């Protein structure tokens, strides 16, 4: 790994993928989180769930091979792995709310130190759309977030309290950012890993809430990815 200023989205997704456990059932949110599946480590058997009623889907089909009745929640064409199943929307969200998923990974506009998540709208303008996000933050055994550490104009996305409309209350347990891996424990941000190239003070300056340390802080590493 070369010295970098911050991780790319692909690198954040790669890092999140390293924590997906063998044998787990996982839902990856629409957009950025979907990228995590590409980096699933070799030898791990992971079953992916999508809200629109598919369990056990695989890679995207080759261009031209799409069957548009076979899509994921992001309306992207998918393929099936052996052992896949179809079910209706109520059964699909029974899986979500009923505690049957091991992990859900979502994107974020803001994550608060108590685990509150804001990821569905940034204000009261425009057309609101929520999809399955408010369901996914409840029920999955672990809810993680992948996000840039700051907004495009440099404002912290890890905050003391969310200012954008909430998706869920005290629901996030781990955040993978472009600079760090941070757990949420007892309503505090606990730093687990950070890029070697950034100091603790620099990181905290980019975070709108105190960072705590509990044990070792490892170097956040990810391979070069195109």
């Amino acid at each position: 790994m070369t010295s970098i200023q911050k991780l790319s989205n692909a690198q954040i997704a790669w890092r999140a993928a390293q924590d997906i456990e063998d044998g787990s059932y996982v839902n990856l949110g629409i957009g950025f989180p979907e990228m995590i599946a590409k980096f699933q480590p070799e030898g791990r058997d992971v079953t992916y769930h999508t809200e629109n009623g598919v369990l056990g889907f695989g890679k995207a089909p080759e261009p031209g091979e799409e069957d548009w009745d076979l899509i994921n929640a992001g309306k992207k064409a998918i393929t099936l792995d052996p052992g896949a199943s179809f079910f209706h929307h109520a059964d699909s969200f029974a899986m979500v709310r009923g505690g049957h998923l091991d992990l859900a990974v979502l994107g974020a506009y803001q994550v608060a130190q108590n685990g509150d998540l804001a990821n569905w709208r940034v204000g009261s303008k425009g057309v609101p759309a929520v999809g399955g996000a408010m369901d996914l933050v409840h029920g999955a055994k672990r809810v993680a977030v992948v996000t840039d550490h700051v907004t495009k104009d440099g404002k912290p996305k890890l905050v003391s309290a969310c200012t954008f409309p909430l998706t869920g209350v005290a629901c996030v347990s781990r955040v993978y950012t472009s600079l760090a891996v941070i757990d949420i424990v007892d309503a505090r941000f606990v730093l687990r890993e950070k890029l070697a190239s950034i100091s603790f003070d620099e990181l905290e300056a980019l975070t709108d809430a105190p960072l705590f340390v509990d044990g070792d802080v490892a170097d956040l590493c990810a391979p070069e990815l195109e």
Partner: protein
Amino acid sequence: MDKTLPSLENAIADIEDGATVMIGGFGGSGAPVELIHALIDRFRATGSPARLTVINNNAGNGGIGIAAMIKAGMVAKMICSFPRSSNAEAFNEKYLAGEIDLELVPQGTLAERIRAAGAGIPAFFTPSSYGTDLAIGKPTEEFDGKMYVRELWLKADVALIKGETGDTVGNLTYRLAGRNFNPLMAMAANRTIAQVSRLVSPGDIHPEQVITPGIFVDAVVEVPTPQQEEVLVRAGVVH
């Protein structure tokens, strides 16, 4: 008990002004495009049915299906979870102009409210939306140390759904992920109208493989080579 009807026009003829209409599908998969277009054709010819409330996960895409209903001006309100799509201009324009109402419902809550209506369950508690703007005004309660929001059943006058194989007594199967909301909506409407790609005789669907039992279906119309909504959108088709 033959529930087949000879034509799409026939199937949608009784839908009234102001009706609440559930429409199956998630994005383009499982969307009953031909039933929707028959409804639009009737509206263009007669001015009815107007002022509809439409329940779907989305709010239409491109220039066909629900988007075309909205553009035609026959939809007063959408109840959905995600009124955004690659080409959601039809809804966006009406919404931003204040010409269409929106009830936004989390996707799992939408599914469960529809299922509850079909199952005779007037209210239930869900963790989804607790502490958010979408729970404002709704009762909340703690169970086993966690907070939940009370939601009500969601019924409709009519459901338009798309099955793959259907028999004459209304038993249905679905194609791939085209299942989604279709079996739930079939349970929740006073009158459920199914278009099926293949019409068969009772007994031709194995009883263990029926997904929607015929008791939930009132009318069946065969549409042998149905259009796929996503394919139409990508081709830029406008109805």
